[in-house]
């Protein structure tokens, strides 16, 4: 479980966002694999730079999209990505 107020998520070492311009989609690239992202997921992960907290990210995106509270969605997405070992560990 991550604490959205204090945790500052970052992509794990060797994981990077990539725009696949041939298939016109965003992907997360990592050793021997690629994860296809929808626009929301790509927008969230683009902000996972280790400086923003989860709350910062949710607020920033909600403002950008004129959306209501996105915190639950962001947490759920990050937990899914973390389960695959693609984010730095929360205690790290």
């Amino acid at each position, binding site marked *: 479980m991550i604490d959205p107020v204090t945790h500052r998520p970052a992509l794990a070492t060797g*994981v*990077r966002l990539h725009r696949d311009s041939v298939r016109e989609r965003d992907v997360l690239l990592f*050793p021997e694999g690629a994860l296809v992202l929808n626009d929301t997921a790509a927008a969230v992960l683009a902000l996972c730079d280790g400086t923003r907290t989860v709350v910062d990210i949710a607020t920033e995106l909600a403002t950008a999209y004129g959306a209501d509270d996105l915190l639950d969605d962001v947490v759920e997405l990050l937990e899914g990505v973390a389960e695959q070992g693609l984010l730095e560990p929360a205690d790290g």
Partner: protein
Amino acid sequence: MAEPAPIAYPLMLVAELSYVCPLHCPYCSNPTSIVGTRRSAELETEHWTRVFGEAARLGVLQLALTGGEPLLRRDLEQLCSAARDAGLYSTLVTSAVPALDERLPALQEAGLDHVQVSFQHADPQRSDAIGGAVAYDLKLRAAALVVELGMPLTVNVVLHRDNLDDVEAIIALAEELGARRLELANAQYHGWAALNRAALLPDAGQVERAERVVFDARERLGASMDILWVLPDLFEDLPKPCMGGWGAEAIIIDPTGRVLPCQSAATLPDLPVENVRDSSLERIWFESELFNRFRGIDWMQEPCRTCPLQRQHVDHGGCRCQAFALTGDAAATDPVCHLSPHHAALLTDRDAALAAAHAPATPRPAYIARTTRAPR
């Protein structure tokens, strides 16, 4: 008739930069025809640079820089930088010989994303004995340096009779080194491994015990380390989706520029040769007879054509090279499939080989060392 499915874009480029290797592993997946190949026949930096750009524009995301030993290329830094410029995610697949100490920081700076270091065994002497070279300490140093530089590390070990009982220690070694991934692939008996089958063939009990160790470790390790486990075909009764299908996901380019749908496709007869020196990757991928030969399902024979398990799009008929090696027909169903009329012969041959190799009185044959050097 339905419209034929459009040809998918490739995802993976395997760049075999040089066949020369300081190690002599008896199961090497390079073809045995590498004996006598010359470094002067290797592609130039400009060829690879062009090809990486073409690959990225075709949709390739992942690039494996391999060989032989890719560190023997003096232009490896330039090639990593070309890969990064093209937007490819690059992996160096290395024996860690020669030493990486001086070079890895520059490779990382140039854009290298990930390093795979091979080990042959968790025990230093036995690892060096299997690889036929003093390499273990260099491997340890290289793995430590990869982690120290903040790069993801994969440890890979090809498994066979002489190291399957060591899987627990291999997993412990990978954990200790801080590997994110561990590839444990059983040797497949093509090429050099076929030459060395009498020495390498494990018994079924060894494979089963190792598999249990792997499954337990996976449970314990969770997301902290991925373990890839690949069974040997000889102990399975359904074929693997070799290369994700012929001309479906992957492109192999050998050191001389030949473009192939799989590492051993050059062993198949009557296949037209394609070379990046003469043609664009795009033309070869979409239009060449080579890449279209076993694409889709129209080329399939029985029993694949009317597969009762409906696995045509799951395993793509299995491995073409294995079908040819065991039946003489590259378009036959992979005899690993229990539905193949050749499956019974495969089992008879395997069991005879197992009985011969594991009979108590049988002396262990020496490995035939993988080499590019022609006999004098």
